[in-house]
């Protein structure tokens, strides 16, 4: 019983982290129609921003939580203006390759600036303890991770359904030409969407910083994981990112506890099965 509770809790925590990365990937795919290979690298930049702001500059974690994603979002807006806007009408392989180039650039730049070593970020004191849950000990920090996931997921949902900016983004996702005709500044929307997706990924990075070792490899690892999430849930689908993240979180959470020798193959088997039975993912593709 205890081990099931622990596995469930781990699955949830990991699922929320994966959701924060995959949801940005899906928003960007939904609107811009590009698969952002560099998304994991942006998540990594968030973690390094957290390390720099708290570890090197000595600022409180809460400031990093706001400033990290903002910095990465600004950088992403610049990248979108300089690189990506050139190739929106090209085949999807070109956008994959271009964002892959971006991944190489960010990975190397990170090694250059911060070195190849592993860095650690301390969680704020108020989140450092543990609490007991149905006979298991869990960290307070994981409760904070869940809260952030709920706030971001709910916030995005409200943003896309209730605000004008969100509706404009959805309009641009479903029909670019028509949006342009009714006077929407589509290039600006694209920049904003890319920055938004990148900012959420960076937020994931800041959140992950105290529980994951910060290293140059963390971006490439998480990008494969988030590809699995979006494939399982449905490429471009907002609820799909949530469902896929929970499913993959569960595969990891239960797999590592009950099937340790199969654990690293299970996610790929899950991804392949979904692709073969329902290529558009469990939730199908919707305009965000």
């Amino acid at each position, binding site marked *: 019983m205890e081990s099931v509770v622990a596995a469930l809790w781990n699955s949830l925590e990991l699922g929320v982290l994966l959701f924060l990365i995959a949801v940005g990937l899906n928003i960007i795919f939904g609107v811009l129609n590009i*698969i952002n290979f560099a998304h994991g690298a942006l998540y990594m930049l968030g973690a390094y921003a957290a390390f720099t702001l708290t570890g090197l500059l000595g600022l409180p974690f809460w400031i990093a939580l706001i400033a990290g994603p903002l910095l990465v979002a600004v950088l992403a807006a610049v990248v979108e203006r300089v*690189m990506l806007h*050139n*190739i929106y009408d*090209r085949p*999807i*392989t*070109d956008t*994959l*390759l*271009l964002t*892959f*180039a*971006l*991944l*190489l*650039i960010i*990975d*190397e*730049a990170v090694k*250059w600036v911060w070195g190849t070593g592993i860095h650690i970020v301390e969680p704020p004191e108020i989140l450092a303890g543990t609490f007991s849950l149905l006979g298991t000990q869990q960290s307070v920090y994981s409760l904070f991770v869940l809260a952030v996931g709920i706030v971001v997921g709910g916030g995005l949902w409200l943003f896309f359904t209730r605000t004008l900016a969100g509706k404009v983004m959805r309009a641009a996702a479903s029909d670019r030409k028509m949006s342009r005709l009714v006077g929407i500044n589509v290039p600006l929307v694209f920049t904003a969407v890319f920055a938004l997706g990148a900012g959420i990924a960076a937020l994931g990075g800041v959140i992950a910083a105290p529980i994951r070792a910060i290293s140059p490899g963390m971006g*490439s690892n998480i990008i*494969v994981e988030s*590809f*699995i999430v979006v*494939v399982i849930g449905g*490429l471009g689908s907002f609820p799909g990112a949530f469902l896929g993240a929970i499913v993959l979180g569960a595969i990891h959470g239960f797999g590592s506890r009950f099937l340790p*020798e199969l654990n*690293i*193959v299970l996610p*790929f*088997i899950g*991804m*392949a099965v979904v*692709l*073969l039975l329902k*290529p558009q993912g469990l939730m199908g593709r919707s305009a965000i």
Partner: protein
Amino acid sequence: MNSWKLLAGAVLAALLVALWFLPSWSPYFYIFVATEILILGLFAAGFNLVFGYTGMLSLGHAAFFGFGAYVVAMLALHLEAPLLPALAAAVIGSGLLALVIGFFCVRLTEVYFTMLTLAFGMMVFSIAQQWRSVTNGSDGITGFPVSELGLGLGLTLGNPAVFYQVTLSVVVLAAAVLYIITLSPFGLVLKAMAENPERVAFTGIPVRRYRLYSFVLSGMFCGLAGGLFAPFTRVASPEMLHWSQSAEPVLMAILGGSATFLGPFIGSAIFVLLETWITSFTERWMLFLGIVLALMVIFLRRGLFGTAVDFVLARARRRDHAA
């Protein structure tokens, strides 16, 4: 037009002769570099059958490259197999693996195909990493002998110059076969599918089956390249199977030009030479590569060789019109 073809053939022949005699005047270092260029060029060209010719971006081809490497390394370690039969086993083994993976992958197109190849490639990687008793886990397979070629030829492959010339022969032969495939009616169907699969389907050609053929053939050539790479580097490790390794042939094909047959080989030469040159004064090779790749994708989509060929052909055509 014909004189251009003749000239190109003569240049290629002269290049091959010069490559054959490379060991007689070049230091060992450049023999190693040339061997690497040849093997990775074959990997990129094999991959390009699926990418450049059939129009499918696979991110799982490292699985076939790495599988070929493991086959040769394990046959050498356990059976002390000579190189040629080991290579044959690598080609057949990788072809079978490509048949299994391709059977599933070719059902999907575009980005879904890419994702599924990534998933299968990482499955193979994970198995190699996890199955310690067979694959030796993340340490990989090392310490296998690289001695004979087979065929009763008394060649000592331990000598880098000899290994280089064997590699050159194998790669040139394989490239010739690959070239014939791309020129054949089968190759033309692949090219047509890259341009417009629906129209090909209307003519009654089973598109999915042709995609599978292309995938399997491509896997066999990549397996051969991997089979040469293991005795070259004296190791077969899981890194060779990782998806980031799959990205290398993509880069090479783009760099040289994926729409031309020789493009991937030239891309491989540029890639390895640049890597060697740049890493001699900075460790930031990947940063440089990322910038080059970004510029190529944005501004020079046909690749260096592809763009040069376009330029020459356009001039030739203009001259033909004038005459």
